[in-house]
């Protein structure tokens, strides 16, 4: 019985996990250049996982714990950087989930046909100017973050 339950739970967690291939385009205002990376992102119940197969980097964020791997070896990140990344991932999870009631607590939301503009309300507005979300066929396909330092991060869901 216990075995069956475990198998069911494993199956359920893999079913609930949603994996997407994405292309990330970063614009750095400091050097006035854009950099493109490709990766894979999985959203699951307790967190998310991002991997960049080309550079053998992977990050696992689960239950408010962040683990970073380089070539399958765990590498520790500076506390400040880890904390900022966790905040960023929390926002990504929230955007993926798209729960309006949760988003409303943190952003002022403006809807324009298939585009949603989120303006941060709390402390994150010190880092993020606004977020643009685009949905096609009711699925989130594009996220663009406009940062306070004029950098931008665009994520295109390829699947």
């Amino acid at each position: 019985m216990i075995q069956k339950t475990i198998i069911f739970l494993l199956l359920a967690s893999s079913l609930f996990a949603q994996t997407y291939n994405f292309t990330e385009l970063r614009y750095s205002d400091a050097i006035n250049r854009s950099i493109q990376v490709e990766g894979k992102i999985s959203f699951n119940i307790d967190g998310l996982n991002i991997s960049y197969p080309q550079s053998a980097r992977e990050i696992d964020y689960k239950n408010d714990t962040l683990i970073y791997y380089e070539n399958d070896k765990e590498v520790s990140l500076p506390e400040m950087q880890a904390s900022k990344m966790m905040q960023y991932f929390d926002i990504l999870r929230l955007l993926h989930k798209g729960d309006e009631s949760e988003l409303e607590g943190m952003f002022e939301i403006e809807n324009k046909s298939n585009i949603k503009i989120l303006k941060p309300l709390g402390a994150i507005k010190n880092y993020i100017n606004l977020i643009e979300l685009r949905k096609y066929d009711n699925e989130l396909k594009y996220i663009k973050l406009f940062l306070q330092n004029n950098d931008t991060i665009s994520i295109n869901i390829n699947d």
Partner: protein
Amino acid sequence: MTKYANLIILFILLFVGILLKDSINISTNLLSLFATKESVEKLNIANNLGYSKEMLIAIKGFDSKAKKEVREISKKLRELKHINFVQSSIVPTEEIQDYYKNNYSILAKFNDANITQEQVSQKLQALYDAQLSNIFYSSIDKNDPLALFELENIKHSSISHKGEFITLGEYGFLIRVMTDIAPSQMDEAKELYEDVHDMLKEYPQVVAFAPFFYTVENSSKIKADVQWIIILSTVILLLIYYLLIKNIRLLSQTVIALVSSMLFASLISTVFIENFNILSLAFGMSLTAVSIDYLLHYHFHNFYETSKKIDKNVLYGYLTTLSAFAIFSFIPIPLISQISSFAVLSLSFAYVLFTFVFPYLRLKKYEEPNKVQSVRQEKKVPAIVVFVLSLALFIYSASNFKLDSNIRNLDYQNLHLLEAEKLFKSNSGVKLTPVIVEATTQDKLIENLHELKSLLPDTFSLASFVKDKQSCKKRQEELKAYDFARLNRLINEEASKIGFKEGYFEDAYAFVSPLALCDVKELDIFKTYGLSLYHDKDIYYTIALVSDVKKIENFSFISSINVKEMFNKAAQKMYDDLLYFGSIVLVFIFVLLLLSVKTQFIYAINYILFPLSFTMAILVSMDAINIMHLFSLIILIAIGIDYGIYMSNSKKPTNTMLAVKYSLLSTIAAFGVLIFSTIVALNSIGIVIALGCGAIFILIKVMR
């Protein structure tokens, strides 16, 4: 006319009461009855600093559902009245972030080493390369590209967290709410209590706790409890008087006399004694019922039918009781001294009424039954045996004596709230204790906090956010001496060569001027961390959370606000005072008894010693002794004195016995019914009086 003397006296007192109504002062601050004046002052300061006004809300688990509930509940809480702020995240408030921005150059660590052109070039090149090669996004700080300043992460040692959310250990998420309600503000406390509980109905798994919840929940329970006790007590008293004595006029005149005595004592106490407490008033009124034994003794001995002005036995009984309470009125425990003062006044007034006014009321004579049961002397135990037994019981009690110094145990035991409080305490991993720190100026206060922090580095206080004036001035000098203009020029030249966007670093290090000031005015913004500032009578106070109070005990600017410890100390002092004054009273009673009963001394003293030792022996066998047990033992002494004198000097033992029995029933009706109370303080009194009265019944039956 003399027939109505008793009633006229009552009306005169009522009239005087109406005249004096503006001068009547009754304190409702129960804390002042138990804690010392200094402790009460400290707790008042702590209240002004927000301590005990905090409400905690726990949401079980760390999953996304729990996070959603944290956001929803926080939002709803912010809309309620009496809520100052809600904190569920460690992310600093906007005000604190602004404070950091404006004071960054002072607060951050500063590396003032001289930097060469080559070093500038190397550092900027590394930043440029990282932008192209880093797999994760990293930003460039255009204000401080060389990272000369480094802001240390402030360790919120008073807060545990997962990500940005505050947690309650491993239990789940926590919301900290600062209210403007002190536990003594009944109406406001009730309003917020109801609002919070209405709002939380949607979240059955969520647990909330605040000290003022006790005020709301316990007061309604206590009210209901006291109402039921009063009804029970009245019914029993009426039954005794009507069914047993069958004399309605005697009953009505006695009730009038008791009300007059209570009124007389209440007026004097509330007009002339400073901060006379409502609890002392309630106890004092009950204690007045002890005076019924004067009346019963007079009635059953038909004293009012004789021409005698005074009955010696009643006089001795009254004087001994009076002396005992007069001594206790000097005890430095406000509750006992106030009740004792009240007792002196009310018992004296009752004695005067029963002795000098009642003879004129033309009350019905007591008809002795024709057949008087003879007292069977042969089956009774000699007084010396009871005396020895009492001493043995005292020795047993002394060897098993255990004190309960937790005064909170006296309150109504609200198990559901106690459990909620325990949930927060046991799951909180924080082991810091709050202390009050004081100084004559704000600068000195910050200096004291830094001194504290240097001794106990994990201290959480305003010193975690604000520099002391001396370090601030030093930093200002360092900044003034550093050539930031040269550095800015070098950075912009090298950045251009490397390929950075033109002018990207044009404001590098501009934030150092103008220099931030060393006078911090916006300390109120740290209230969200529970760090308030309070200014009263030229003294500045704040709270610091420390890991080891003992290490800093000798600092003159620190006082502990550990309520439990405070009450434990107060309770210990109370016990010591009670023991000291109790001993004086006992010696005094011994002497007075020796003078009044002479050869019957052992017999008479047994009416004090046996009930005391019997009750104490049973109490120590059951549980620890609390302050209310001890106080009730004093009432027992007062009761025992009278009976000892009456029984040992009685010329008509059967009549005396009857008077004593009825008097005991009255006492049980007044105090013994408290045994049914769910409030430990009242229940303790009930147990002692019921056991004591039982012991006196045994004595009447078995001692010769």
